[in-house]
């Protein structure tokens, strides 16, 4: 199996720049807390991705998370590292094979499949050391970009 290189995102690189757009002005300690909160939002595979709203409509996507600000924060960090992915429709195609699914359950199903594939092929991102499947980081990026136009 060919390993894709792991994308490493270290927090100290974000120290000097403001991430107010993501809801945080990032000192390293605040940033670390945000990452941990986002990790909690993403949950553990096997557990529900959106424990508060599986039957909810999926738009706006940020409302599916218990707290979207830290998710947005990770997404912003990821996009800074991967600027060519800063396109909502392109991210949707990568994650869902087309437009954003209409319900939270649809998103969760697609992400679970993508996550299994990413983990099998070691398509990974680390944020401050936390290991994420690439699709999880891309989902955060989608939240950071705001809802894509249909």
């Amino acid at each position, binding site marked *: *199996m060919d*390993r894709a290189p*792991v994308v*490493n995102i*270290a927090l100290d690189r974000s120290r000097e720049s403001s991430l107010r757009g993501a809801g945080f002005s990032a000192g390293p300690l605040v940033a670390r807390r945000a990452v941990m909160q986002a*990790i909690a939002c*993403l*949950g*553990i*595979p*096997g*557990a529900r991705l959106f424990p508060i709203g599986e039957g909810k409509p999926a738009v706006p996507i940020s409302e599916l998370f218990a707290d979207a600000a830290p998710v947005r924060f990770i997404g912003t960090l990821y996009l800074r590292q991967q600027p060519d992915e800063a396109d909502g429709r392109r991210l949707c195609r990568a994650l869902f094979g087309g437009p954003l699914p209409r319900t939270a359950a649809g998103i969760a199903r697609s992400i679970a499949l993508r996550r*299994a594939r990413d*983990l*099998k092929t*070691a398509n*990974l991102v*680390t944020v*401050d*050391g*936390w*290991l994420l*499947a690439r699709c999880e980081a891309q989902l955060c990026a989608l939240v950071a970009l705001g809802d894509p136009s249909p």
Partner: protein
Amino acid sequence: MIEDLRHLGEGPTIEADLCLIGAGAAGITLARELIGSGLSVCLVESGGFEFEPDVQALYDGESIGLPEHGLEIGRLRFFGGTTNHWGGRCTPLSDLDFAVRPWIPHSGWPMRRSDLDPYYRRARQLCGLGEPRPASTVLSALGVSPPPLGSELRVKLWEHAPENWSFGRVWRQALAQATNVRVLLHANLTRFSTNEDRNHVSSIAVRPLQGAPREIRASCYVICCGAIENARMLLLSAEARAPALGNQHGLVGRFFMDHFRGRIASLVTADAQPEIEAIFNYFTDADRRLYQIGIELAPEMQSAERTLNGCAVLDYEGDPNSGVAEAQAIWRDLQQGKWAPDMGEKVWRLLRDLDGVVAMVRRRLSTGRHPVMPLKAGMIVADIEQAPNPDSRISLSDERDAFGQRRVCVDWRASELERRTADRFAVSIGTELLRLGFGRCRIEPWLAEPRGEGGLQLGETYHHAGTTRMAADPHDGVVDASCQVHGVENLYMAGGSVFPTCGHANPTFTIVALALKLADHLKRKLARTPSLAE
């Protein structure tokens, strides 16, 4: 027969077919194996039956490289040697550990794993293990269903020797009763005498810290003093116009290795008492044998990613406020005859979590699993193989010990390969645990530093090895495949010092297996040699 050199006084040269220097795992294994062999064996040991500070101080030295506290606290200098504080974890080296791995300079043993397999089987008795059983049988008996790990990792099952399995304590009586084995306590090797060509050791001098020295003359000699002291003993044999025994190519003391141990990742789990803890943990079977289950790097992964070997266990951090934690604290206090001033509060906290305590007791009784407090967090703790490195070495310092002999100087060094192995291993484990739904890992940030700027933030394990490494060619090693020092026909080395590479396995089991192999070799060799003792 066991004697104390301090009480023997002056006397004639002691003669034996075989002189073993050092009564640790290797020396005691050799002596025990030769009981009733018809060969006269003299086993000399620097210490007595108990720890003595002035004897232990003979081990003092300096560490000038990575911190190697094992120099002083990792080794024990009395009968039984370092097995007097042995953790007891037993596992053989793997097939790949013996092979030449092109991506690891200086790798490869002059033997295969299959050459050592018969001796691994015999080593089980020495180490207090039961009859060998396939891992799948053991796991089934323990009621553990390991998860299907991906191709990069394998579930690792370790067996443990019974608690406090000191070779000195366990085999002392057998040696005391043996008519062909003479154990000399408080006997320190202070000098080799050789023939003019220095290819034959004619005798050695031993002496206690207080008392008269004695000469021992034997057909063969085996130095079994541990990897650091083995190298020191050879280096001390240098004379004004002659290199140290076995050091004609300057290899004695080089390639010093230890396993690198430490946290490579942390784990957060989805619930308080996760499934993972029921798999990666300690277990006791119906015969009260202890096992541990962890994870190791698959050989295919090592080859594909050009890494070293490595293994890992999960170390759980329990919730100190749980009822189980209180029950454990109360039990410890009562065992020590203490009555804590806050005992009432402790009992109250235990009662408030009675369900959890009862569940844990039931689990312990029905499955033999060790009690674990409700989980706060987990740590992934790895043992990483060290790559052979000629610059990681033992030399002699300018300080002198009580006999006026130069002390040891350890310069322990790591390379980028160990850090890269730890990084790959951490990512593989984190990925698998995430895939299996066990939890999410945070890789230690220093592992992800570009170009290894974070250094190698792992510590030592006191698994010293490599300083008189084994190689078929004298240009590549100090001893040959039979453990004979190249160029010295009757001098042998035993112990971790002969390991060319060290895999991830704790070394004692392999030390014992190699000592058994050496015992067979010496029986054959000495059967052809006229006995000095007659």
